[in-house]
């Protein structure tokens, strides 16, 4: 196994482009090292991106948007004084991952690129409209988070491409987000269903919404019909029921040891309602 710790993303990209066999980037390592030790994936090349300048920075840009370095950890996000008041849903979703120890290492980018349909931060990022910068042999481009996963363990990144930054849009006024997941226990578990909701209000009426589902299909989903169900409403019972129905209808889950198809489909609707209510309350400036 070859281990590299490049000083720039261009170098990281070149190393990956020229590597043979199995390549992994090493961010927090909470997936990579676990998979290595359990002999699921033994990389031939390991490229540690944590030595690149600025990779742990969390920056609020002049326009109110945010740029996060790809090695910023869950703990650093939770402890940031302002990020959580702009994007409580994204921060909470990341904070749900693992234990205190895991929080000290795990990153948004690692969670995204590991490609698990149940990854907790991904539905929250999709709902929030997060994009990532992808640096490759041909330069850098911006890609929406929902374009990255293509199936369990698979991403749309091609050989030599590395994510170099995470960009969260400006929150703006009268808006809120939330993420909820269902697990059979209270922590240290993997989502059986995950729902991210972000919305904006004009008065009591929802004017913009993005709803994303996790763990109910081969990839995290951005569900237009869910957004349609609540846009224009005051999130009354009829709108919530329509939201739940749209969420359940979008599910394409599997029966497995973690949950049945019927269960996932039903609970996706339940959580969509509950997450929407929290996001709505937050948009109104209420504590939730």
């Amino acid at each position, binding site marked *: 196994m070859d281990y590299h710790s490049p000083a720039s993303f261009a170098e990281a990209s070149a190393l990956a482009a020229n590597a043979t066999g199995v390549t992994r980037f090493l961010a927090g390592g909470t997936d990579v090292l676990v998979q290595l030790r359990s002999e699921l994936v033994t990389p031939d090349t390991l490229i540690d991106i944590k030595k690149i300048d600025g990779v742990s920075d969390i920056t609020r840009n002049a326009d109110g948007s945010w740029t996060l370095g790809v090695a910023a950890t869950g703990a650093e996000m939770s402890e940031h004084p302002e990020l959580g008041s702009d994007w409580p849903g994204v921060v909470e979703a990341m904070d749900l991952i693992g234990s205190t120890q895991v929080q000290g290492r795990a990153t948004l980018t690692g969670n995204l690129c590991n490609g698990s349909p149940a990854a907790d931060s991904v539905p929250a990022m999709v709902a929030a409209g997060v994009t990532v910068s992808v640096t490759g042999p041909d330069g850098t481009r911006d890609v929406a988070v929902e374009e990255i996963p293509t199936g369990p363990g698979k991403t749309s990144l091609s050989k030599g491409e590395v994510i170099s930054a995470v960009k969260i849009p400006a929150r703006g006024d009268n808006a809120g987000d939330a993420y909820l997941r269902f697990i*059979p226990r*209270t*922590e240290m578990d993997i989502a059986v269903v995950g729902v991210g909701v972000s919305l904006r209000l004009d008065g009591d009426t929802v004017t913009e919404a993005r709803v994303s589902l996790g763990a109910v299909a081969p990839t995290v989903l951005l569900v237009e019909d869910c957004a349609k169900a609540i846009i224009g409403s005051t999130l009354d019972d009829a709108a919530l029921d329509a939201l739940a129905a749209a969420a359940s209808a979008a599910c394409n889950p599997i029966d497995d*040891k973690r*949950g049945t198809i019927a269960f996932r489909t039903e*609970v996706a609707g339940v959580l969509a309602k509950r997450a929407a209510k929290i996001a709505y309350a937050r948009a109104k400036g209420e504590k939730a």
Partner: protein
Amino acid sequence: MALDDRKTDFTFVGTRPNRPDGLDKVTGRAKFGADMSAPGMLHGAILRSPHAHARIVKIDTSKAEALKDVKAVVTRADFADVPFKPGLAGEFWNVLENVMAGEKALYDGHAVAAVAATSALAARDALKLIEVEYEVLPHVTDVDKAMAPDAPVIREGAADYSVPEGMHPNVVRYHESGHGDVDAGFAEADLVLEDSFVTEATHQGYIEPHACLGLLGNDGKGELWCTTQGHWIAQKTCAALLGIETSQLRVTASEIGGGFGGKTTVFIEPVALALSRKANRPVKLVMTRSEVFRATGPTASASMDIKIGMKNDGTITAACGEFRLQGGAFPGAPGDMTAMCAFAAYNLTNVKQIGYDVMANRPKQAAYRAPGAPMGAFAVESVIDEMCNKLGLDPIEVRLKNAAHEGTKASYGPRYERIGLVETLEAAKAHPHYSAPLKPGQGRGVSCGFWFNHGGETSVTLALSEDGSAQLMVGTPDIGGSRASMALMAAEVLGIPYENIRVTVADTATLGYNDVSHGSRVTYASGLATIKAARHAVEKLCERAAAKWDIPVEAVKWENGCAVPSGPNAGDFDPMPLADITAKMGRTGGPISGHFEATPEGAGVSFGTHIVDAEVDPETGKTTITRYTVIQDAGKAIHPTYVEGQFQGGAAQGIGWALNEEYIYGEDGRLQNSIFLDYRIPVASDLPMIDTVIVEVPNPGHPFGVRGVGETGIVPPLAAIANAVSNAAGVRMKQLPMSPPRILAALKDNG
């Protein structure tokens, strides 16, 4: 048998000092199974079957053996020829077959070969070079399917004499017991309820995986260091499996990171010794968590039918049950125990119970706290709860009305001596928990539970030092704070401070035979042995004082750590402290020690009653346990904190078993959840504070009144939680675990 030398006033017993091993454990100084190393040590790894049932056609180890880092490869041929006998009579053969497969791999994870190499990585890599040719056979993992006429036969001839003719060969033992006339009893009932229940296998879930270091020479002399609940059984079994003399193998028990019954047998220990004998070097073997799940004892899974008749006033007129337990590909599922314990809490005129021990293509079940009893209690106590609901009766009143007491003929045969079931029920009724209001969406459940408890072969030696301190050697590995309890009991007899007594779990070469730390026997049996050994030493101390004072030994008694004249007629001498006697012992007759070697028989059965509140989310089926109270008879709590720990641990494990823990097999017969991510034991935040009430109804069979408490605590939780959940959800849950998908489906079925 009642003892006439009972004690009821205590100085040390009943206090709560820190455990002597506590500092070692919190500072990392304690040595667990994987913490031992030896010069020249090799690392072992085990190749395991990926098939649930397959004939082993050929094993080619030549490529692995050719590696320079590999120093030995073993297969079944490297073990002794232990003769096959049916049922549990052939337990050595069963263990051998489990430790290393013979003609067939019998479950996913069954060991088929092992290597020892210069590093753990090299050993793992070498496994990949071993070529095994399998002929895959049809498999069965479900207990009811394993009994069906068309089920694949796991092993012909494994059934013992007890099995009635015409049963499938996978049924290997049969138990039937009871008394009275159940048909007549059902005829007298106002309400008869019949129902069926299913529980999945669960793992003991100890945090420390199995680990050992073995050294065996070609001269037949060996050393073994391992994490175990009983090193003498490890010694005896390994010696038999390797064809060496028992006494030539010295076994030392490491500190143990949990066992719960699962470390009462051997898995990797004989393999490490076989590898060592071949390589002529020490070999260390450490299981991964996945190996622990796939190849060490989970508990049995169960399928059960219950029928109970009750009068309108709650009197039970008759009860019968059929209990089918699946214990993996070997005899040993505790169908008999389930049957015997199921109705043991009740004073019944008419009762009948049948138990089956059934084999299936799963790992060999191992004991798990009160093996077999929790499943039976789940089925029986669920039916009683449902009957209380139907008849509008209070569940504790109904249990009190039918409760067994001193003199009751137990459902499994004997008459009870003094027992404490009624006291636990009275305490439950009086507990504020039982009358606390419930919020909407919450339900309350209660259940009783019973376990036999065990005595077992026991040896203890207590040696006094010149400075007046004492060293106590016991042979029962400390799995729950027993060293503290032993020191308290010795302190009580000797009259010297707790801190002046060091308790050591001695190795097999240092002490006589000891049974395993199981059957809730340690505080009872090693405790009784400690008291007797201390009294033996006290006799000698009194003799020395008598000689010094020149009075008869009968005129000396032992009080507060001193020899004193027994009365005014005996003479006027100042009390002679223990340390004064031991300071001169070399000159007054030599070292002073006390011994005990026997099999205490008066373990004293134990009962408990649990109260649980649960809240069910009607939209997701998720259960939260909001309040939990354990009430159990401890006879006498030697160290109350560790008694409470046993109670709380039972509740915590019961919550896991009831709500989320289960062995999940795919269509292919392979275990799908062999890591803690998907095998869901409760995490700390899943549990409420678990309240405890220690009831003390002294056991007549122990000098201080002790009853074992290690196992009864796991018996009521499954039923108590199921009753709480069923009452909260408004639908009777008959299958464990009550995972959210199952509860949500039950709610939907119920409309």
